[in-house]
């Protein structure tokens, strides 16, 4: 059965009429056509589908859309302000962390969830967050580099 569910996504109010058990990823990709959020596995193991729900990084492939009801969603498309990239995006683009780029949106959102709420996160916390994501291309080192670069920018930004 279909229900009306409202939320804000990337700063815009939206109302969808879907089965409340439908996974968030399918609403984001198929209903709202925001295809930046990726689908990489069948059982919530790869992390590519990560989005921000009410400030926290969640896997949209195992989160039913009803959990987003009246909530706030942020996807990779909502991170940049116009042409100005978010510090995490900028750092990840410059550190060599992007090869095929398929894991990138999920990783960027994971880091956003961590660093925006806890800019002083320890290296272990950053590594634990990255460990929830699979990347087959980069060997992870450039992603760690990018995360640390981003952290510096975010800390400096907050100090202003």
């Amino acid at each position, binding site marked *: 059965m279909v229900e009306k569910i409202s939320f804000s996504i990337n700063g815009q109010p939206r109302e969808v009429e879907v089965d409340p058990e439908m996974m968030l990823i399918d609403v984001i990709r198929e209903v709202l056509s925001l295809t930046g959020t990726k689908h990489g596995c069948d059982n919530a193991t790869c992390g590519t589908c990560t989005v921000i729900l009410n400030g926290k990084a969640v896997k949209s492939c195992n989160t039913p859309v009803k959990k987003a009801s009246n909530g706030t969603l942020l996807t990779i498309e909502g991170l940049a302000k116009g042409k100005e990239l978010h510090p995490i995006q900028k750092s990840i683009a410059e550190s*060599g962390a992007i090869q095929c780029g398929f894991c*990138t949106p999920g990783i960027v959102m994971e880091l956003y969830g961590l660093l925006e709420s806890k800019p002083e996160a320890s290296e272990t916390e950053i590594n634990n967050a990255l460990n929830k994501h699979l990347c087959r291309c980069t*060997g992870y080192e450039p992603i760690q580099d990018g995360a640390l670069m981003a952290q510096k920018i975010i800390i400096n930004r907050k100090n202003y």
Partner: protein
Amino acid sequence: MEYKYIGKSYIRPDAISKVTGKAIYLDDIRLPGMLHAAILHPEYAHAKIINIDTSQAELMPGVVKVVTGKNCNFHYGDNIKDLIPIAVDRVRHIGEPVAAVVADTVQNAQKAVEKIRVVYEPLPVYVDARDAIKKDSTLIHEENGDYWHLPTLNPQPGTNVANLYQLKKGKGSGGFEDADVVIEEEFLYPLGSCAAIETHGSIVWFKEDNTIEAWSSSICPFIIRDDLAHSYGIPVSQVRVHIPEIGGCFGYKSDITVEQTIAYIASFVPGYPVKWVASRAEDFTSTLLGHGIRTKMKIGAKKNGKLVAIKAEILHSGGAYADTSVNVTIAATHNCTGPYEFEHCDLTGLTVYTNTPPVGAFRGYGHQESQFATERMMELLARKLGMDSFTLREMNYLSEGKVNSLGETMWKLNGDIKACSDKVKDSVFSKDKLNEDENYFYGRGFAAVMKSPKGAPFSTKGCYIKMNIDGSVNINMGGAEVGQGLRTIVAQIAGEALKIAPEKIRVYTELDTQFSPYEWQTIGSMFTTQGGRAIIRAADKLILILKQTAAQVLKTDVDFLDYDGEFVFLKNDPSVRVSIEEIARGYITSDGITIGEVAQSVSDARLPRYSNPDKNGQGSMGVEYTFGAQAAEIRIEKKTGKIFVDHFTSVFDVGQVINPLQIRGSVLGGVTISVGATLYEKVEFDTEGKILNPQFFQYHIPTNKEAPKQTIEFIENPGSVGPFGARGIGEHPVIGPAPAILNAIYDAVGVDFFEIPVTPEKMKKALLEKQ
């Protein structure tokens, strides 16, 4: 040599679109009227199909068409036409398409496909080539030998051997007469999955005007184009194939695979684009697997360590169709010598039909599998000879003047393996080894490696350059960007060749056979070398056009002119000049008459004098080699048997580094993939041919915390084929990790392993047995 743009870390042109989520991958494509396919896979890995009942499925909501292979009457393939788009009367592996549903949504298609009922008559299942080649084994293809195949292939009718490749150098096995010491062992590099994070998928659209348009997450649009045109009897020009961004390849999205299946399904609903994207499970069961190579190797040496003879049998479990595996076997066979010279070689490669999903390319293409054996054998031989293994290797490296198994002489241009080896030895083995402590054993292991592409006679890469009126440049090529970063490389090489800043060069994004210059396929670590050469050729032509126009404008001869990226000018008086802006579209004289050609050019490049094998299996079949050395520093946890790769070192002679950031990334990723193969990854089958671990939580690939810290260095002895001396590097880093880690295990605990992955259970068991 000093370059302006080569050797610097430019940021990839696709970084911004990828980091903002705007890059379009296959599953992101939405087309008007698009329908979705779901595919039924069999319950048996080998069976006759007795009956398919689709009646219930046809009644399901949203269903547009149910498709079976009942009337499918064609085979396809690039090397052996043994592939079929959908099962006709028999299934040969567990991921084979048996029937399909086309529906309005993915969900409806999936629900309907479950309603299809099939009656099978099971046949014996062979997962391992050793079983499939037994004398009385059931034939997986009764037609073996009758299929069209490349003239260089040698199928064995009446058996499950899809191809037999033999190479003889010198006296072959007769060479062992000259040996004082002989060792013989058997090694296994089991079946694995490339496991790109983006699964494979395609969209195919049969149009009312009798053309076909397709999209695929593949690296070979031109092969797909040619093959579809052949299968459906239309001119090649009437098939248009697009390649969007690709979310990783590592081999298994090369050759033609799922595209023909989706095309077959779509051919039943002309006028509608049909999309299919593999689930993760289907990516394991219904695309290509990799590896599956068992190497029996015998090496003979003189007492002083001089290698004299090698005999190897490469037994490749090629899967249910051999089109994609035959060349892997061949590369594994002729390059199984690793970076060593043997005067006498007797090498045999058998590609065997088995009842697993077809096996195809996996980054490394046969090299990591057979050189896993060679590099373990070097340690075993050194031990037997009572020699230092570095000394043994150094005596035998394929250095300048040596001749490889194929009969190709190595030149200084091929790079310096000894220099790579020395660097690794110095940085890893010159310090003291860590002593065992309460919790851990420590060990170090080394491997020297080499790789050539496995080319084809027509394996060319095209390039089209056009210069615009402001002097900026657009470049179009057919190379597929899978993440390796070729677009950055194109901009840098073109910048250097045209003396124009890479920022002014716009590199192509998607591939489209309607517009892209011809390229065979983007494989074999060949893009930088061949594609780069094509860019330089096209740039030279373009500069000549500019000079020809300028010669008319400046009233002189072409050879008196020079070009600096902004002007064409007189060599003896640079003040006599004309700007690029004035001549890029031809020069408009004061009376409006235009002279000269538009500044645009086309070129291509292939490997020089690549040839087919001769009667001894030799020939100019490698052409370009990159050599390197790698080492692992590991720790084994006593309690659990868990192996940690704490540090991994790689040194390659790449001729010329084009982009330091990207080349480091290639090695980082390549090493990590093979650490996965060595410690975790193996596609497990039960005796009935079912895959037991087709999910990421079962088939574990390395995570952030498991990736080793790496030291990566490059030596630059320029080659002669690639641009500015650059050689291929994309695949090479995957070769050394397995032998280096297993050599390190021996160093740590004195236990020899001959198979990967070395899981904690296996390690623990070995430790207990040793006590």
